[in-house]
């Protein structure tokens, strides 16, 4: 393929990525001219919506489109994850605007970095080659490292960024080790070609393959914050600006799952038994550590960090099922998780105001008295995160349980539901503080139009998909078939 052949046919599948990247660049330039951050944010949202529209237009249409010599693919699987990333970016921008002003860190680059990170995630989801996958992961990670530490005058934020960066670097190294081993074995980095080579040569029991799979598990385990590779998460989540905590508790995690699903289901499809044996303890440990340690947290961001570790465990169950419908259940889980988690963080952000952190659980005491609506929304998100119907969180868990039980992992499902009972304790504690205690001091909420919209959208989705999930389920099943 000569350079001149790069016609529109090759551009079309990567149009959303291009748009996001261009918008990110434009935002950086715009920051020089425009003083008002609202404009920058708005342009960012419009650009993301445009990309969303483009992805939506091709979603569910027949057949995957592969470009760049099979390195990049536009298929239902990647498109579905891209929806999660778009939504994640848009909602994060919505909840950031006012908040970053309060944190005195209202930089225009913030929005550009959000979009760069999003572009990285999109590349991860579409990568059909380990090198492209690595590129995507680095683009995403580097942008996120900066975003975590963007409150320069806050030592906690800096510490979080450094921690995240160092451990993130390690995990990237693991990924590269894994990729090089696989290359040494098969002579290719193309995910599809790897699978073909392995099955053709009968390499299924090969030690190098297993080692490579283990290394990939470490790398992806880090990205999705699954125990025992979760150590960075609580500190990074607590130190990062709350909006970024929301952003990275959803985006990079979903991207990690996208990569995990693709690499393990395609490249390592011949050693399904082995990798599901490795992933089961990972999932159990994540649910255990996430849900148990969250009980003892008093900082709500830290608590939600542990909760996000636990949710990684639940979503992993879908991968462990090792079927296409299992993958669907994992994708469905991440989609719903995006809304409920960002919704919860949006409420957390509203408590932050000049001179008041609002991160301690006790700050929620009596919230229902003065701010019944905010408390009611938080209640919905907390019950959804617990997985109690009629919220979408239940549907998410239910789908995953359906899939693991279908493949015979009944005991695993029993363990999962038991930990979800344990999780009820700390989620409900937030509700308990809001509704059953008297307010200590007056809590003033910082509200703005964008954050209200974000809350309305997330709450609506969580409730509507909790009661009428079938349209969402159809939408997810398109991802695997189309």
């Amino acid at each position, binding site marked *: 393929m000569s350079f001149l052949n790069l016609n529109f046919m090759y551009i079309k599948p990567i149009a959303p990525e291009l748009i996001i990247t261009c918008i990110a660049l434009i935002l950086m330039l715009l920051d020089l001219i425009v003083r008002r951050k609202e404009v920058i944010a708005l342009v960012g949202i419009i650009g993301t919506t445009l990309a969303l529209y483009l992805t939506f237009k091709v979603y569910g249409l027949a057949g995957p489109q592969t470009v760049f010599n099979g390195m990049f693919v536009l298929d239902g699987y990647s498109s579905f994850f891209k929806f999660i990333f778009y939504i994640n970016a848009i909602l994060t921008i919505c909840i950031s605007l006012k908040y970053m002003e309060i944190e005195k860190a209202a930089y225009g680059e913030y929005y550009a970095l959000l979009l760069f990170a999003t572009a990285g995630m999109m590349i991860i989801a579409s990568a059909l080659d380990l090198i492209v996958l690595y590129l995507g992961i680095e683009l995403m990670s580097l942008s996120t490292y900066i975003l975590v530490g963007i409150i320069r005058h806050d030592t906690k934020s800096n510490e979080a960024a450094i921690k995240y960066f160092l451990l993130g670097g390690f995990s990237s190294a693991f990924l590269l080790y894994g990729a090089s081993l696989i290359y040494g074995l098969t002579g290719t980095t193309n995910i599809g070609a790897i699978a073909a080579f392995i099955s053709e040569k009968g390499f299924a029991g090969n030690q190098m393959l297993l080692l490579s799979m283990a290394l990939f598990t470490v790398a992806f385990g880090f990205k999705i914050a699954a125990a025992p590779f979760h150590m960075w998460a609580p500190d990074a989540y607590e130190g990062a600006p709350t909006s970024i905590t929301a952003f990275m508790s959803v985006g990079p995690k979903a991207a990690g799952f996208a990569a995990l699903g693709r690499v393990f289901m395609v490249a390592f499809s011949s050693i399904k038994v082995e990798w599901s044996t490795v992933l089961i303890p990972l999932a159990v440990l994540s649910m255990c550590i996430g849900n148990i340690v969250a009980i003892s947290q008093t900082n709500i961001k830290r608590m939600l960090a542990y909760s996000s570790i636990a949710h990684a465990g639940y979503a992993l169950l879908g991968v462990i099922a090792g079927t296409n419908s299992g993958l669907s259940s994992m994708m469905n889980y991440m989609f719903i998780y995006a809304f409920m988690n960002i919704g919860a963080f949006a409420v957390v952000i509203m408590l932050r105001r000049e001179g008041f952190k609002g991160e301690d659980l006790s700050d929620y005491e009596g919230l*229902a*008295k003065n701010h*019944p609506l905010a408390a009611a929304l938080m*209640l919905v998100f907390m*019950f959804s995160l617990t997985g*109690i*119907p*009629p919220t979408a969180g*239940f549907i998410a868990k*239910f789908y995953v*349980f*359906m899939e693991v*039980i*279908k493949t015979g992992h*009944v005991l695993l*499902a*029993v363990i999962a*539901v*038991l930990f*979800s*009972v344990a999780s*009820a*304790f700390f989620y*409900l*504690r937030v*509700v*308990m503080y809001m*509704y*059953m205690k008297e307010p200590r001091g007056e809590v003033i909420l910082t509200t703005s139009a964008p954050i209200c919209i974000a809350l309305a959208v997330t709450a609506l989705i969580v409730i509507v998909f909790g009661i*009428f*999930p*079938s349209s969402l*389920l*159809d939408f997810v*099943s398109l991802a695997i078939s189309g």
Partner: protein
Amino acid sequence: MEDIIFNKLGYPILTLTTFLPIIGALFILFLRNDALIKWVALITTIAVFIVSLPIYKHFDKTTYKMQFVESHSWIPLWDITYKVGVDGISILFIILTALLSILCVTVSWKAIQNKVKEFFISLLIMETAMIGIFVSLNLLLFYLFWELMLIPMFLLIGVWGGPNRIYAAIKFVLFTLAGSVFMLIGIIVLYYAGGKTFDILALSKVHYPLSLQAWLFLGFFAAFAVKVPMFPVHTWLPDAHTEAPTAGSVILAGILLKMGAYGFLRFSLPIFPDATRAFLVPMIILSITAIIYGAYVTLMQKDLKRLIAYSSVSHMGFVTLGIFTLNKTGLEGGILQMINHGVVTGALFLCVGIIYERTHTRVIEDYGGLSKSVPVYATFFAIFSLAAIGFPGMNAFIGEFLIISGAFKVRTIFGALSIWGVALGVTYMVWLYYRVVLNEVNPRIRHHLSDLDLREIATLTPLVILVFLIGLQPDILLSYMHTSVEHLIEQVNGSAHGQAYNFANLITQYIKEIF
């Protein structure tokens, strides 16, 4: 042969009954005036009651089939349909729920002062969930309603409850959730075992291997036993009952506890008949333990509400005993006793709530001589106490009589032990009555007392009528359940494939399969 009769009324009567409270709740959401909110809540609950009346009028008592069935596709991916219907077992609980909900609103009229809006919204959501449970013909729909209750009940206990309310609320949720997640797993396993359907009627036609039945029975048992509550997992109940506001206690005692027992009737018995027979003796022993242990613990209570709460453990033991006798007398007695217990214990909690509003104490020692200062109240209290004892001519007598005669048919010893429970019941109730109503007027509460006002009399009167109506004319209710209960017994015994009705056989077979 189709087991259902579709709704012929021309409008979706069950759906309307189920979701009318939610509509009322949505309406309340936009109101600001507390007085108006109360009226809307009252009108909604009364409307639900009126809307449900045609169900009894048009109900065909001669068939066990599900009636007024509505079926709509809901989640096609898992073949989940929104399917509702009633039969002779579930129909009575709808009227009980509708009636008690009205009383819950009236009794909370003055008692609830803060967060009035949230209170009545929670109450109405509860009503939808409760009716929903009794009409669901789809397992997942059932489970959704089952869990939907958690949120409003958590708030009812935790926000408007007594001093120790937070502990009680969290304990309630954790216990219930821990039980019901096992049922969730059971539901999913059953889905795959029963041919990928959540339809209760379809699932009950499949014959499952005994070991699977046993595991599933235990899974469902975990959920139902916590709700009933049966003996070892009853500890959440005294706390929840005691701390809940009056309306919450009434709902808990009146309806929520019935859901567990209803679950046994609707799922455990028809879907796992072999396992039910295998576990029969342990179930009966647990029931009798609950009756006697519950009664003894009731005897030593110092707190009015706690006493009645523990008496619920004992009374619900009768219900489960009746169910697991697996004969017509016992089963009908069990179902009737569920209604009776809802009426009587609900009424007793109302009485306690009414007097608590005046005295602000629940300690029995603080009371005494109520018959002198509040004679009308004392009369009502006397009627309900006698009813709780099982006084002939009142409703609980019929229920307990049927249950005990059913128990005698199984083994003489079971019947004899349950009579011992009745005797203990008389002891604690009469002693309570003596301490609270008779005796000298306790100076500590003398100044707070005023007799019942019209609203309170109106709240209690319907229950008095029910007490005597069921007591004297039990066939009004029993006639609804005859055919359904007969069909249920057929289902439980029908799948035995000619095997002898022998627990020991089944247990040894089960043990063999495990090891």
